[in-house]
């Protein structure tokens, strides 16, 4: 049997890797993918605690998170596509409309 703490540590590592990818990468699509990695790390923690508590509620929460992530991906990618059409770039440095 695998100790459940391994899963928690793995989830922490994945979350941090997602955060690093978000800071290091420069194109919007990969930054968005990094957010998805962080969401997945949270899902893993939820499932681990559901297993630890022998409760199914954690799994239901993950089900909802996956659904909301799908909706978020649709809208987010639509926005990225819109930015690309207007500015012909998806580099995060070039998107400075709100810079004073």
């Amino acid at each position, binding site marked *: 049997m695998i100790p459940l*703490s391994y899963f928690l*540590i793995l989830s922490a590592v994945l979350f941090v890797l997602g955060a690093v990818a978000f800071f290091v990468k420069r194109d919007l699509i990969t930054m968005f993918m990094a957010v998805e990695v962080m969401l997945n790390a949270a899902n893993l923690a939820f499932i681990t605690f559901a*297993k630890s508590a022998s409760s199914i509620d954690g799994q239901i929460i993950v089900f909802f998170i996956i659904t909301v992530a*799908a909706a978020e991906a649709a809208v987010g990618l639509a926005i990225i596509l819109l930015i690309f059409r207007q500015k012909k770039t998806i580099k995060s440095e070039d998107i400075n409309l709100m810079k004073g």
Partner: protein
Amino acid sequence: MAQFLFFLLAIVCIASVLGMIISKNQAYNALFLILAFACMGGFFALLDAPFIAVVQIIIYAGAIMILFIFVIMMINLREGLSPERKKWTLYFALGIAVVLIVELILTMKAAFSPLKSGGIEKIGSPTDIGRLLFTEYLYPFEITSILIIAALVGAIVLVKKRDKE
């Protein structure tokens, strides 16, 4: 056996996320991410959540990543993203990463000690999830459907070509 499977999946998962950080090509990034999400489905299966594991593979590794790949295809950047990324952002990100991981592990240490492997009874069968979804979690379930409709309409309206001229 399960232990071996866990470490194999963990190595593949972390390596593919690292590959996503290192690789410059967005299409490769998406493929790396599909691999990572498939591994995540394996973890869910190891944790007695077969239904969530299948949902993870179908929705995340299937639907969401196909959406990403389609958008990458439509954007089709001729010139690669320039590598003139500033060096200090990397060090900044690494510093934040170290702080964050120490913080997370310290927080989770409190959870480790009472963390036992639960009972032997099987949880997470599709029947149980379905029953709970339509009784206790009925309102969130219905609200989620409204959210998905809103996201669908919003995405279509956002990218629709406006023919005002």
